Structure formats: structure tokens, C-alpha cells
């Protein structure tokens, strides 16, 4: 269900402290989402491509993900250029594409890709478990971290349960149609998953209590910041500042 294809590797990105990477991803993506001028946007895209290259991700898997993201962005291109007010550039029948609309769609495309690549290179390069611990190390609320880690652990169990139920239904000749019977069967299936997940949660909690759990999680992982982490943090800060500065410089001119 969750493949984590990028999680293992021995690139610079994989070696960096997960806490540094999560912080960098956040500190980078927020300003990038806010810039409005073409030069800082392109600068961000170049920086993102650079760190993606440093992460040495599997090219095929990387493009597969980029296609998914950009096919959603494609929907923007169908709608936005024709619905924005502004100077008309070309017309298709009654629809008029505006200059402003095209610029807007282009900026969404560049910024989304830049942020997406940065997250792939920085966050997708760690296992979900490590991300959880890093978040705990950064002082994220314990409940959020617990929710993330337990969801990650049990989503597989629930998937397995779902497949078991589906098999049981199919074995008895069930075929999905547009009928009340189909809807009812699916409703039962989902209902059953909820009930089982609830029961499971109760048993897991019991098992945790039996091992002395009293509501507080203790973290096993101890992190140490290395020289590479410091260099990377400085480089990222410079990059973020450069993007911010160019935006600001263009704005005052």
C-alpha cells in the first residue's frame, strides 16, 4: 500500500539527519509557495532539481510520480487560462485565453513542481518511521506523531483485512454492478472494516498496556547533527534567502 521506493539509498540526502531534512523541506516550501515573480520561481525550480539530483532517486519512479502530479496540474491548464480576466491572446470558439491566465497557470506549474521535487528529495528519502521520530525530535505534538506511526503500521493490516473480505465476497460469485445489492455489499464491506479496525485498536491498546504503556511514548532514536547536516542547512538557507531576495528586489524596482 505504501511502497517507500525512495526511502533507502546512500546519497547525501539519505545520510542527512531526518530532522534537518524535514525542517529544510518546510522552510523551503513555504517561501517558494509565496513568491510571485518568474525569476525567483525559476531559481527555486533549479534549486529543487539540484537537490533531487543529489538524492539520486530512481529516474523511472521519479518520472512516474511527476506524471501523476502534472496530470492534476494539467486540469488547471484546461480551466485557468480561459477563466482569468485580462488581455486575450487566442480564442477557441467562444473561449478566450488570457495572458494573465497563462502566466498564472505557468507559475502554479513551476512552483508545484519545485515544491514536489524538494519533498521527494528531502522527505521521501526517509522511511515513514524515521519521519515520525524526526517529527517527535522536532517537538511536533505526540498525538500527531502517534497517529502517523500507528496509521502507517496498521494501514497494511487493514488492507489485508480488506483483501480477505473482498475474496470472501468474490468467492461467492459477487460481481460489481449498478445495483442496490452491489451498493449494500460495499457498504457492508466498509462497515466491517471499521468494526474490525475498532476491535483491532482495542486489542493493540490492551497489548500496549500489558507492556507498561501509560500514555507516554519514549523515543528510542537519538539523533546527532553531523558536519554534512550543518553544511546542508547553510546551503539551503542561502538558497531560500536568494529566492526571497530576488523576489523582493524585483518588487521594489
Amino acid at each position, binding site marked *: 500500500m505504501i511502497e517507500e521506493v525512495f526511502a533507502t539509498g546512500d546519497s547525501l540526502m539519505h545520510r542527512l539527519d531526518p530532522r534537518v531534512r524535514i525542517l529544510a523541506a518546510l522552510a523551503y516550501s513555504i517561501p517558494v509557495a509565496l513568491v510571485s515573480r518568474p525569476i525567483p520561481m525559476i531559481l527555486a525550480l533549479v534549486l529543487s532539481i539540484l537537490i533531487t539530483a543529489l538524492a539520486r532517486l530512481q529516474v523511472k519512479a521519479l518520472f512516474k510520480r511527476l506524471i501523476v502530479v502534472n496530470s492534476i496540474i494539467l486540469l488547471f491548464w484546461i480551466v485557468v487560462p480561459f477563466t482569468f480576466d485580462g488581455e486575450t491572446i487566442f480564442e477557441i470558439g467562444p473561449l478566450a485565453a488570457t495572458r494573465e491566465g497563462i502566466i498564472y497557470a505557468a507559475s502554479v506549474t513551476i512552483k508545484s513542481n519545485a515544491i514536489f521535487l524538494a519533498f521527494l528529495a528531502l522527505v521521501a528519502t526517509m*522511511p*515513514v*518511521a524515521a519521519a*515520525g521520530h524526526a517529527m517527535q525530535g522536532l517537538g511536533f505534538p505526540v498525538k500527531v506523531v502517534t497517529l502517523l*506511526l*500507528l496509521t*502507517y*503500521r*496498521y494501514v*497494511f*493490516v487493514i488492507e489485508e483485512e480488506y483483501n480477505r473480505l473482498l475474496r470472501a465476497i468474490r468467492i461467492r460469485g459477487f460481481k460489481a454492478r449498478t445495483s442496490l445489492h452491489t451498493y449494500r455489499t460495499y457498504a457492508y464491506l466498509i462497515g466491517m472494516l471499521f468494526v474490525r479496525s475498532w476491535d*483491532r485498536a482495542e*486489542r*493493540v491498546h*490492551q*497489548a*500496549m*498496556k*500489558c*507492556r*507498561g*504503556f*501509560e500514555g507516554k511514548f*519514549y*523515543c*528510542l*532514536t*537519538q539523533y546527532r547533527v553531523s558536519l554534512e547536516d550543518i553544511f546542508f542547512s547553510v546551503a539551503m538557507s542561502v538558497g531560500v534567502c536568494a529566492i526571497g531576495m530576488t523576489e523582493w528586489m524585483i518588487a521594489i524596482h
Partner: protein
Amino acid sequence: MDDRDTLIQLKGVGFSYGDGRAVLSSLDFTLLKGQRVGLIGFNGSGKTTLLHILMGLLRPSAGVVRLFGKTVSKEKDFVEARRRIGFVFQNADDQLFSPTVIEDVAFGVLNQGKSPNEARGIAIETLEKLNLKGFEDRLTHRLSGGEKKLVSLATVLACRPELLLLDEPTTGLDLETCGRIIEFLNELSITYLIVSHEYDFLVKTTREIYSIQKGAVVYNGDSSILHSHYHAHPTGDILHHHEQ
């Protein structure tokens, strides 16, 4: 009988589910230090219910539960008793909730207040004892059924309990993993109570076998008789008859 050596003492324990169905009624049971007891019973006979009562996960509707010589009735009493009892759940997926093996094994140890370094050391040591060296960073959900069971045993043993309770430890396991568990249990020096519906498994891991019938515990006999029986007939599925 010294009170300190009586780990479990149940007197007249009864339990009914919400729908009024009585599972256990006036049940008496005692477990002494050093004993290895098997408890056999059909599905729905109340075996798991009994274990859950011992761990304080269910409260009996009647009777007295004494653990380590003290009467336990409130959550607070059980919190204390749970530190000394290791409970292996029937389903390993319920037991293993952490993403990685090492974290799960260290979980109980960390709860005991040990430092992360100490906990890591104890966890690795426990895994080695169970021949699970190198499993530390494996993801729990990607383990096989047998591996999950062995790891869940490790998670409980890492807490160094004085008493071990195992609920249907062989459910869904292949012969090889079963063999490993049998071997391991025989090497253990702690007191344990195993609940199972598999006679063969109990014969190989326990000295005394009780059965749970009509909500009460009945003594069946010394498993050594059954033990020699097992060795005499490696192909036990051939129909045969014994004289006492």
C-alpha cells in the same frame, strides 16, 4: 505454602459477557513459582477470558484475583502486577505496533524507565537469544507470520517478566516455527502458563495440563506420561490404544 511463591491465585472467579452469557463460573486456579502449566479448552471455553482477567483487561463479576500474593482489583493494582507479567497475545499483529522491530522490543523496556541506550542493549540481547540477530531494523509489518510471533515473544521477554502468559502461541504457525518456540520455551527458566487447544504443543512445553470445562479449571494430569507417549509414536495419527 509461602505466599511469595504463589504467583496466581484465583478463587471463585466468575465472568459473564454483556449479553448475560456466563463464560467462567466459580473458577479456582493456583499457579506456583517454577510451574509450567498448560491450559487446554475448546473455542469459546473462556481460555482467553481467563488470561485477560489475570492481566486486568477484563474484570471478573465474582471472586478474588490474587497476583504475587496480593489481591488485585483496581487498575492501579494491575498496573503494578503487569510490570512483572509478560503476556503474549494470540495475534502478533496486535502486539507489534511499532514500525520497526527494535522499537517494539524496546517499547516495554523504555516504559520501565530505562534509558534509550540501555533499552537498545536489552532489546538486541533479547533478539539474539531468540535467534533473531539482525532483525533490529526490519519493518514489523513485512515480517512473516512465524517471525512476527518470535518477535512478539521477544517484545515481552525484553521486559524480563517473572511470569509468562501465552495465549494460543501456535495459531497459524508452521511446524518449523512451532519447533523453535518449543525449543525456546524449554530453555526458559521462568514460570509460565500456556493456553492452547493443541494438546501436542502443551505436552512438549509444559509439565502439568489443566483443562477448562464448563467455566471451571480441571486438572488433567502430568504431561510426562503424555510426553513419553509422544516419543513412542512419532506417527501419532495411526489409530492405537493404551492401557494405563
